[in-house]
């Protein structure tokens, strides 16, 4: 309508069934309800408007106002988010949450201001698991396999530490590639493995919880500055409330997805403490390589939180 501030929110997942898609729709619903007359939000799911590679460019151009790419998409803006890609950095989603709401985590949201982006809220997807077309129990099982990974230096280093071969590949091609054996395995969260039906074309999924997939809701500094302070505060408050509720529900969605995979006949391998430790031993050395990017103090803070859980 006339006079309303139009907020375009572009993301790349389904509007239903995916934690991010659901949160985005909830956010839009509340904004359009509670801020009727001042602000109006349109959500563009499924990469229909921009995909994650283009959305940040478009945001700096002023063509889209809100986005929530996965943290590995911010590589070019700041290297601090690499901490979330480092294997076994966080014990579980609660530890991630505690870290992000700590002062350290809050500071990270401001780390891209000089490049024109303001982080607003972290949205969770869940802990990552490994799946492959052969049983994965010990890290040696992954040796020589081809794994599809997101194009990020940390994830490439992580796969190399396992002796596996990292393969960059468009997300839409992954199912076909796993099925036909162009690649052998992949890493993802329960909800993605269920949503994309990867378990159908894999021998099984190993519950490693070795990393996390998280999103950052961002807006451009220029756009936020252009908003009337009262409007901005109202919007950010709604966003925060949606975030808290959405993140709280992620654990349930995750468990549901995991159960759905089992119900559909998918194989899930749980690891004993010793078995899991073997994976930690092989992959943890990757930390050293990126300590300079993420800061030793940040790593220490993360470990402190893990210990307190």
């Amino acid at each position, binding site marked *: 309508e006339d006079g309303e501030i139009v907020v375009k929110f572009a993301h790349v997942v389904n509007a239903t069934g995916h934690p991010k898609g659901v949160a985005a729709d909830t956010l839009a619903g509340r904004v359009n309800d509670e801020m009727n007359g001042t602000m109006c939000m349109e959500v563009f799911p499924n990469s229909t408007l921009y995909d994650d*590679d283009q959305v940040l*460019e478009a945001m*700096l*151009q002023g063509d889209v106002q809100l986005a929530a790419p996965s943290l590995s998409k911010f*590589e*070019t*803006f700041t290297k601090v988010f690499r901490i979330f890609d480092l294997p076994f950095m966080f014990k579980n989603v609660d530890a991630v949450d505690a870290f992000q709401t700590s002062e350290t985590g809050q500071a990270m949201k401001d780390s891209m201001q000089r*490049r*024109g982006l303001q982080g607003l809220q972290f949205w969770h997807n869940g802990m990552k698991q490994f799946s492959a077309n052969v049983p994965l129990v010990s890290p040696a099982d992954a040796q*020589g396999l*081809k794994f599809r990974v997101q*194009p990020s230096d940390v994830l*490439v280093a992580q796969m190399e530490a396992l002796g596996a*071969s*990292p*393969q*960059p*590949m468009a997300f839409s091609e992954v199912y076909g590639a796993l099925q036909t054996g162009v690649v052998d395995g992949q890493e993802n969260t329960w909800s993605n493995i269920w949503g994309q039906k990867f378990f159908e074309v894999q021998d099984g999924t190993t519950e490693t919880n070795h990393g996390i997939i998280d999103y950052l809701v961002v807006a451009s500094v*220029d756009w936020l500055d252009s908003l009337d302070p009262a409007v901005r505060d109202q919007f950010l408050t709604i966003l925060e409330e949606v975030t808290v509720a959405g993140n709280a529900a992620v654990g349930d969605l995750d468990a549901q997805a995991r159960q759905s995979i089992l119900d559909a006949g998918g194989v899930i391998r749980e690891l004993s403490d010793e078995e899991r430790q073997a994976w930690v031993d092989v992959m943890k050395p990757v930390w050293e390589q990126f300590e300079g990017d993420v800061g030793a103090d940040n790593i220490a803070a993360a470990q402190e939180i893990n210990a307190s859980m």
Partner: protein
Amino acid sequence: MSGQTDAAVSPLGRFVNALEEMVIAYILAAMTVITFVNVVLRYVFNHTILWGLEVTTILFAWLVLLGISYGFKRTAHLGVDAILNIVGPGPKRVMVLLSALACLVYGGLLMKGAWDYWAPFAGYQRTEGRIIPTGFDDRTRDQAFYHTEQVPVPFGGEFLAERFNMGESYDKLPRFIPYFVLPFGVALMLFRIIQATIGVLAGRRDSLIVSHEAEDAVAEARMAEN
């Protein structure tokens, strides 16, 4: 190509022709070879050149964006000539001039868009004004820090860092390099559209389109036959 061409009589014209053809032909060859090599590396050696995919898609963009101007030069772009062929020479000329005008407007608007898109990545200012540029926008945020996902900097890293990124070194190729083809290709396209329009005005060309995509292939096949 079937359409009319501005006969390249001068040595310079011949050189430019050969260069354009060389460039687009071997960009395609490079894309093919990189993709093929990566398949072999993956299947036989369990290895991948990580930047292979990204470089291939960049080359794809270069191929097309450089090729568009060549297409205007050789009157090779597809169109509908059903009406053009029915009407008399007078109306036809008016229609062709109108479509030349449409191409000029398209090229002009795209030129502004291409500059505005590319400029911040190279630390230049985008233009002000929504349709017509009315000056440079000094509030443009410098986005020279923005780099590609996987492509390494082959050489000149220090120079690039000093000149464009306030001394901060790039660990990947900055985006303004692959993106440069956008303003460059669109400028070339605009130039060829202007040339074509002049050609129409001077009566050297009778349209901007070829509607028979494969005419050429047919002509060649016939020559091979004879």
